[in-house]
């Protein structure tokens, strides 16, 4: 059941390591076996099985996050060959020319504090989900009948937005999202749009708009449009930014006249 290995084929890796949050980062080279189906997570697992650098030094295996290995959990986001990607769906054969002597570079995301090696702290994104009240308010889990009827067109508009894994790729690529500001980024804007579309999710729409029109909200978007290019789930992020931007205008006019 294992993909046939090309005998003796290896690939070079250059990994940016960092022992702890305050330590200085450093590069380390590895050379690991590579098969036809190898992806970046399988290369990292190989290092764990034999944690020796290309120079022959025994080292601690690089720390990294991974879980589902099929690009649906959002764990393994990292910067590979200079581009933010999910390590599990990054197949070596797709990013690395056959027989290339060049190493594949693997770095942690730069927009989040490094915990160790390739592990970063993405708690900011989860905290922001709280801020924009990313949920449908329900009375209780008691049996109160079905939810509102939704047309297939509405479902098909909402479904792509519901697939956001909170992986952080859009934030890594965004020039406006930095470690020292509080911009919420495309992910949160798109999730807010998703909940605002739902007939009952709309109940909290104004509260979400208040957050998105405050500091770190929609006006911080610089329209670079990098987010949509790197989203592994091809979520229409720039469309969401447009929709929320227009909703913000409408909301502020409404607010002005209701004063």
């Amino acid at each position, binding site marked *: *059941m*294992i*993909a046939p290995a090309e005998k003796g084929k290896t690939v070079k890796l250059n990994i940016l390591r960092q*022992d*702890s949050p305050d330590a200085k980062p450093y590069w380390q080279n590895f050379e690991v076996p590579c098969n036809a*189906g*190898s*992806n970046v*997570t*399988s290369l990292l*697992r190989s290092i*764990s*099985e*034999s*944690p020796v650098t290309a120079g022959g030094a*025994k080292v*601690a*295996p690089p*720390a990294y996050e*991974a*879980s*589902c*290995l*099929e*690009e*649906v*959990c*959002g*764990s393994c986001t990292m910067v590979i060959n200079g581009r933010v990607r999910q390590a599990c769906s990054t197949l070596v054969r797709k990013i690395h020319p056959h027989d290339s002597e060049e190493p594949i570079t693997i770095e942690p995301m730069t927009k989040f504090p490094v*915990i*160790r090696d390739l*592990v970063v702290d*993405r708690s900011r994104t*989860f905290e922001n*989900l*709280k801020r924009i*009240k990313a*949920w*449908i308010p329900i009375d209780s*889990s008691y*049996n*109160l*009948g*079905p*939810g509102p*009827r*939704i*047309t*297939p067109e*509405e*479902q*098909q508009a*909402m*479904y792509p937005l*519901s*697939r956001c*894994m*909170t992986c952080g790729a859009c934030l890594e690529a965004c020039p406006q999202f930095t470690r020292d500001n509080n911009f919420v980024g495309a992910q949160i804007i798109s999730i807010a749009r998703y*909940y605002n579309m*739902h007939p009952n999710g709309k109940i909290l729409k104004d509260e979400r708009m208040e957050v998105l029109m405050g500091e770190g909200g929609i006006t911080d978007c610089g329209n670079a449009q990098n987010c949509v290019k790197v989203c592994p789930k091809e979520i229409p992020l720039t469309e969401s930014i447009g929709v929320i931007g227009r909703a913000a205008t409408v909301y502020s006019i409404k607010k002005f006249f209701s004063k």
Partner: protein
Amino acid sequence: MTHKRVIVVGGGLAGLSTSMKLSEEGVAVDLFSLVPVKRSHSVCAQGGINACNDVARQQGYSEWEHFEETVFGGDFLANQPPVLEMARTAPSIIDLLDRMGVPFSRTPEGNRDLRLFGGSLYKRTFYAGATTGQQLLYALDEQVRHHEVQGHITKYEFWEFLAPIIDDGGRCVGIVAQDLRTMQIRSFRADAVVMATGGNGLIFGQSTMSIICTGSGTARCYQAGAKLGNPEFVQVHPTAIPGEDKCRLMSESARGEGGRLWVPRKRQDSRHPNDIPEEERDYFLERLYPKYKNIVPRDIATREIFYICEQGMGIGGGQMVYLDLTEKATGIPYDVLKRKLGGILEIYEKFVGVDPLIEPMKIYPAVHYSMGGLWVDFAKDEKTGGLRKADPRNHMTHISGLYAAGEADYQFHGANRLGANSLLSCIFTGLFIAPGIKKFIESQPAVAEKTQSLYDNAVQNQQAIMTRLLGSRGTDNPYVMHRELGKAMSDNVTIIRSNGKLKQTLDLIESLKDRYRNNLGLPDSGLWNNQSLGFARACWDMILLGEAVTKAALAREESRGSHFKIPDEFVDRHDLPLDQRALQRDDEHWLKTTLVSFVDGQATLGYEPVDVSLVAPRARNYGKVTAPATNAPTAGAAA
């Protein structure tokens, strides 16, 4: 409002639904997870969630039918009252998920759409594209976040459960856990603990499960005195993409929506699949099971794939068959399937590089689900045939105050789980058991009164284990040992089991235990985010679970559901059909639940009767055509 607290370990569907319901009942919850709960393995579920519904009901289906199919699908090994309660509750769970905003796929009129799934002739599976698990998990994740904001639930993400803490009276009164970043080990008091830690696919090396599914949560309770129920029952899913790091699931919904399994009639036919004409294809499940066709239950489809490949009829003579979703085979337009199955089509396209609506997929079975798990109790309601509501016994393990929910427990699915019943059982359990847990903690003295030394000792025990592991300087790398274990378990303890191979596996497990104790070498001795430490601990747990699975399989001298035993002398009799080589189901001796206890460092077997009070066991073959059909494959039949 009670001031007592409950710990939930695991943040998948079972853990989240338990947490949400407890919080709603006014019980404070501490929720522990290895990963942010939004990344739990439930996210990988694809096809859907079963429930009786208005359309099926008008066609003759009912909650009773759902119950009956589940029990039949599980080859009568499941205790029946919990299954009946689950089937009865299922329609209201769909409504609840709908209110939470799960984007269920819709009919043109705006109703929730339905699809066909294995082991049923009625459409009774609700779905959200082909990412149903992800959508359900996110909906519950957001509800739990709402409770978290209100201060009712406290999350401990990137924390690893190490052991339950048990007092002199045998009651679970808390846990020891470790912060995976700072590596701090500390105790947490709890008036009850719920294990919702999922399955154990990693003991088989490659499976469809996430790499966090080591079963260590279950294994640590097992080592502390909880018993395992039916660990030998392991679901091997018929359709996955074989891979070197994991086997990626291709949902049963592919077949529910019209996908067909086939192999070329001509042995080792080297033509491109699209160039092989209809009459030169063997749609073997349709040939063998004219009634259920491609949606026979998983254990059966898996064995048929195994057999056809064993006969040399797999693609290129190897271990693969076609799963065909092309319009040519299904008659369903490209766009329709793209919309309904997009999530899995993308996975195939990304990892294999081929559009499966243009070219048939190449698939093979892979380990997918643990029917077995922590043994849990239930309280039957004699009046309804189902369960007594709010009874503290429901889902309690052999340790008082220690509960299990979801894939981590052994309830509902017997010897084989039907597709789209797992999302249901996870959510049902969480919602159903919370009132009983509340009643339990109200009946018990508060753990706040317990002596601190009980907790300090538990922490010291775990610190000693950590110190020993960090100092281990042998030559056996835990990741390599895991690979060895996984290969043996996959080769010998999955689709076909024979006593000779099972004994060999137990010998290997003994040697792994010995090497682990005496020659382990931890590749990292640091005290900051040390992932090797957690993996090494889980490696030991996986070895012990492997032993429990293999010993229970060796003892069970029959075939039932996913457990298919062939006597050694018939293993290589490829001239005989599998059914004729294998032991038959033996209700007289083996209609019983396996109980595995951890005694003196060994898996020790015991048994108890199964509650079959509602439906009498009967033969299970899904109308298989026994005589070879006229269109049976023959070598070189086609030019």
